[in-house]
């Protein structure tokens, strides 16, 4: 970007300046002996054109909407339209959650995001013994198509896009969504939304797995194939770094392990005989946004560039859509403090800025009370308003990728990309993401980072305002959202009624057909859809698959 002569002059000036600084420091040392990002990148005192001397603009940055998409995946970005403001919500029964969705849509939210309770995420009906105490707690309880019909009652599926945080049983919940569409007269071609469907990060960090790796990967590729033909506007997977980061990874590890998982999905689909350009345009990603604003912006940019390269060079994608890393962001739950919860509003605002300056396609902002309980309606409104203020008032949306060209941002983008690429190489050597998970390598790397972080907090090297510094005595927070334990009983009663009124022979036949298909190489989606339409329950459908596939055994790494 600068010629040799100019760079020489810049170097000279900088060195002169450094000499002066050394004298100052000898009298008054800096706050810390070394400054580092979460990824362990040493932060220099000053970045200059020397740090971007080798940066080839067209090759490494290019224009927005052009390979390698460092500056964004769309040509107009937020000048065209803002990101989708999408608050993750769901609790108790389908009736309760339906009310919350309608409230959020009235408040100007532009997409839905469904949180399911743990029994639903792990494929158990609400009346299963292991569901005891968990029904409706961290999300909405869905046992059958009946609940799904109530959940989207009065919400036209051709008008909203819906993201569903569902992984191991993603095929079943997608089938239910398609079936609700059918009842509303909306064809599957018109449906738009996302299923998370990312099982590898469940093994790594989130824990809601059911089946072993191989059948899980088969279910995922079945969905890719089915949707490419029947639900073309659906994002078939949301390859997630969010939970990897929440489990304690650094920013660079978040990029590395997420893209390594992405590589594993592409490889599985290609191996199953799919053409990369048939499914890759529907792959989407999901990242975290933490407090280190500039590292986060660099992370998002690095992830886009690295993925574009992987798709082009490793998988020989031809369609540009296959190379674009489109992503959802959620602000960092683990950065929120239970102490002085109002401070969390400020953290979320910084993280929102990072996501927007990093070019996100959609965003969930956390509520200030999430270190304490599920968010109340008031807290959710402030979180949504935070996005709206950044969108409409901050001005950062008026030009594309405004931090590009910053010596620090470009240098850090390069370094994060380099660190992530080195991890991916290591994972390749271990035999890919699935093998690296089996060996516990990825989990161990994350745990080491989490433990190091905790030690920094306890030693006071890392300050978390209100938690290990600037504490105050405070009263217990009032007005937290509580899920009525009666929800479990309600769901049980609904299930009892369903089993009495549906055509049980039809259900049995559909489940038997699914069982046989699971033992063959058939795509399972049509069979699951039939079982769902007959009001087979989630637990029954997953039960059949558990019988055929077995269950995943976690490798316990400490």
């Amino acid at each position, binding site marked *: 970007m600068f010629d040799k002569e100019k760079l020489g002059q810049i170097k000279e000036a900088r060195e002169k300046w450094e000499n002066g600084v050394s004298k100052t420091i000898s009298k008054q040392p800096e706050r810390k002996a070394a400054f580092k990002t979460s990824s362990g990148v040493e932060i220099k005192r000053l970045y200059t054109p020397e740090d971007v001397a080798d940066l080839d603009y067209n090759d490494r940055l290019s224009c927005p909407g052009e390979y390698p998409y460092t500056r964004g995946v769309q040509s107009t970005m937020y000048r065209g339209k803002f990101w989708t403001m999408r608050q993750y919500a769901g609790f108790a029964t389908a009736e309760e959650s339906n009310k919350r969705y309608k409230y959020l849509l009235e408040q100007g939210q532009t997409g839905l995001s469904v949180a399911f309770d*743990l029994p639903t*995420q792990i494929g158990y009906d609400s009346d299963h013994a292991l569901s005891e105490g968990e029904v409706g*707690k961290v999300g909405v309880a869905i046992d059958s198509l009946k609940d799904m019909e109530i959940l989207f009652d009065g919400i036209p599926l051709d008008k909203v896009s819906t993201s569903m945080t569902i992984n191991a049983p993603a095929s079943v919940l997608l089938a239910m969504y398609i079936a609700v569409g059918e009842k509303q007269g909306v064809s599957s071609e018109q449906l738009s939304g996302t299923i998370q469907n990312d099982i590898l990060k469940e093994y790594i960090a989130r824990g*809601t797995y059911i089946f072993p790796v191989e059948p899980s990967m088969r279910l995922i590729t079945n969905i890719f194939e089915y949707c490419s033909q029947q639900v073309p506007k659906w994002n078939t997977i949301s390859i997630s770094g969010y939970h990897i980061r929440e489990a304690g990874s650094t920013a660079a590890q978040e990029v590395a392990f997420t893209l390594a998982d992405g590589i594993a999905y592409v490889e599985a689909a290609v191996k199953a005989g799919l053409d990369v350009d048939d499914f890759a345009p529907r792959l989407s990603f999901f990242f975290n946004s933490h407090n280190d604003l500039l590292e986060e912006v660099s992370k998002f940019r690095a992830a886009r560039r690295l993925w574009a390269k992987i798709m082009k060079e490793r998988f020989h994608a031809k369609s540009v859509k296959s190379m674009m890393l489109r992503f959802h962001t959620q602000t960092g739950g683990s950065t929120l403090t239970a*102490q002085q919860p109002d401070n969390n509003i400020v953290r979320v605002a910084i993280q929102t800025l990072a996501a927007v300056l990093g070019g996100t396609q959609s965003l969930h902002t956390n509520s200030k009370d999430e270190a304490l309980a599920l968010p109340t309606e008031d807290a959710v409104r402030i979180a949504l308003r935070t996005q709206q203020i950044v969108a409409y008032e901050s001005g950062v949306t008026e030009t594309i990728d405004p931090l590009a060209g910053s010596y620090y941002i470009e240098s850090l983008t390069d370094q994060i990309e380099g660190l992530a690429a080195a991890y991916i190489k290591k994972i390749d050597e271990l035999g890919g993401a699935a093998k690296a998970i089996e060996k516990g390598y990825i989990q161990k790397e994350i745990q080491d980072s*989490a433990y190091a972080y905790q030690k920094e907090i306890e030693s006071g090297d890392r300050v978390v305002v209100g938690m290990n510094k600037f504490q105050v005595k405070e009263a217990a927070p009032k007005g937290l959202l509580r*899920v009525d334990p009666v929800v479990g009983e309600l769901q049980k009663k609904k299930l009892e009624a369903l089993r009495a009124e549906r055509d049980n022979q039809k259900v049995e036949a559909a489940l038997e057909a699914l069982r046989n298909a699971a033992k063959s190489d058939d795509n399972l989606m049509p069979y699951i859809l039939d079982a769902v339409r007959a009001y087979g329950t989630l637990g029954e459908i997953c039960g059949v698959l558990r019988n055929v596939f077995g269950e995943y055994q976690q490798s316990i790494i400490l």
Partner: protein
Amino acid sequence: MERPIRVVVAKPGLDGHDRGAKVVARALRDAGMEVIYTGLRQTPEQIVETAIQEDADCVAMSILSGAHNHLFPKVVQLLKEKEAEDILVVGGGVIPEDDIPGLLEAGISAIFTPGTPTTVTIDFIRENIRKK
């Protein structure tokens, strides 16, 4: 020589958030305790069985899903039924302040909420286990 304190660190219920449990497990180990980590999705019955088999001094459980009011007291109750109530039971996670008195009454000796330094947990366990 006195044997080291033995702690079973457990994740009851369906919750998959194990960052806290694993960080605490490592901190206890670094503090010289012997730690048995159960992994995810343990029923109260499994946790109690592990605690008895491992001759544990303490069971430390973590839940972030909101199922604590159901699962923590169940473990205490089962320990009693197995005549193992001398095992110290502590819990942690996202637990609303209002729930803590009820849990303490049910026999959980301490609840550690977000932001608790691991040293507090370590000291509590050291001071409160019944020396055998």
